[in-house]
């Protein structure tokens, strides 16, 4: 049973590698066969970054404030992930499970109140 499961993962892994590699290899092959033209220019060679030209090093420093907000965001992100399966199934589940979901949201709410009291939500 286990080799079979790992085999499926193996197929996925192979596909995941083949999918981006294939166009690159085909393009290279077509160039070698002199079928594809090669006319590079600076705009064509630029890294695509949402249409905005990339500038400076990616190792630059960011304001630590961003991380605080990102952490706050992650809390609610994870909340959605946990509540989604519950929301899908909640008609099948007993009423006690509703109170457990309320408890879960309540604990997260405590976290939000704490972050608010500690002024983590203000941009200083």
């Amino acid at each position: 049973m286990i080799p079979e499961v790992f085999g499926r993962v193996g197929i996925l892994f192979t596909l995941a590698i083949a999918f981006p590699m294939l166009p690159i290899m085909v393009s290279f092959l077509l160039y070698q066969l002199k079928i594809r033209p090669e006319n590079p220019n600076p705009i064509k060679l630029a890294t695509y970054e949402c249409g905005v030209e990339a500038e400076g090093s990616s190792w630059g420093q960011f304001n630590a404030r961003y991380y605080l907000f990102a952490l706050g965001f992650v809390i609610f992100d994870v909340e959605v992930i946990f509540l989604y399966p519950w929301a899908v199934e909640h008609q099948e589940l007993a009423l006690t499970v509703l109170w457990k979901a309320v408890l879960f949201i309540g604990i997260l709410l405590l976290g939000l109140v704490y972050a608010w009291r500690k002024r983590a939500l203000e941009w200083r």
Partner: protein
Amino acid sequence: MTDIFGQTLNLNYVLLLPEIVLLIFSMLVIGIDAFKRQLNISGNVPVGLALAGLVVALTLSILQVNMDEDFARLIQVDSFTSFFRILFIAITLVLIVGSHEYIEKSVSHVGEFYGLLLLATVGAMLMASARELLTAYLAIELLSFSLYIAVSLARSDRRSGEASLKYVLLGGVASASLLYGLSMIYGVTGATQYHEISAVLSAGDTGLTTPLLLGLVLIIVGLGFKASAVPFHMWTPDAYEGAPIPVTAFLSATSKAATIALFLRWFGGPLLPIASDWQFILSGVAVATMVVGNLVALQQVNIKRLLAYSSIGQMGYMLMAIVAVGSGFGSDATSAVLVHLAGYIITNLLVFISVTHFFNQTGQEEITSFKGLAQSNPYLALMITAGLFSLAGMPLLVGFFTKFILFQAVVSAGHLGLVTVAVVASTVSLYYYLMVVRQMYLYEPEDGTEQWRLSLTGYVTTLALFVSLVVFGLWGTPLYAAADAAAAGMF
């Protein structure tokens, strides 16, 4: 009994009351601290609430001593759990009473600090009581995350942030390794319940030796990090040095004891059928830990670093007994480890609380700053000396009795070589403990012989610990009986 998804689960919340009480009180402490300006409360409320929560939880734990029941097949409340619950709550209680002056003076964010200590205690209690791999993992993370933050809370000490960063980065790697190891064990056995894993592994060859071995190695790496076993000990001296002293004490007592509890639960339970696979790995780790811990301690100049290496050495002795658990001497070796753990913790708390009060007075933590303490505060010098002698295993003190029981259990399991190393290592350890004693008794104080006193709570806690040090050293029966009952629950 409640039926959920076709499984009959025991959802008796009474079993978890000590943990629930501590959680509620930790939330209260942190919450009240966040609203302290609106509520206009005095600074004593957080410490009072924390102590109240601990006392209630301790009472509830004592009431549950004779239980043997599981909660939702995730938590087992048996005598082993009760032993560790009482131990962990007592450690936090003694630490807070013994060093609240230090915490108020030298720790930033006092409210959060108490809340985090309570949360870490809950994590440690759950580590000892889990009967399922993922619950145990979550408990480890609860303990570790609380401590990552607590380590960084030393006020105006730049080493604190560095210590926390090192601890959190290396701790993250160790957790990843542990989790990967657990996934290997799950992949091989198809179970996360301890007793199911044990059943699958003792049923015979699974035909998957390589993933099983890989899983074992990864688990030993992950747990070895938490226990600061050599060669995964690199974070220990830095984290110990930078952390506030009560947190250092907590790291060396609760964190280590919880890891040993998990070692006993895992290697004496689900992984026992494959003992021959892990025994030689753990023997190697134990020998390296005893030798390196005790030898590197010789050249330390900072008392916290010295105690860090001393605690590494002590962990080596206990890992050695886990090897003995694998040789079929489960309940003897387990009760020996529990006795040694209790003795080690009493002793370590005495030393750390004494050092905390020394730091409160002098603001120094170099070993040379202890010069002439025997003249400026003979009481404290006596306490530190007793603690260090007990750590070295001198007779009449609890350290001798527990070490004797431990070594005897390992010898009767047939690991004479390991015990030889341990005896040599513990002789070496006497030298560096005496270095501190020498500074206190053989030198004149540098800045005059001005006498100073401890606070009342300082006297009470150190005296209580000193008395138990001597009483258990001379009459260890109660300690041994408790450990025996706890071990009997497991095997």
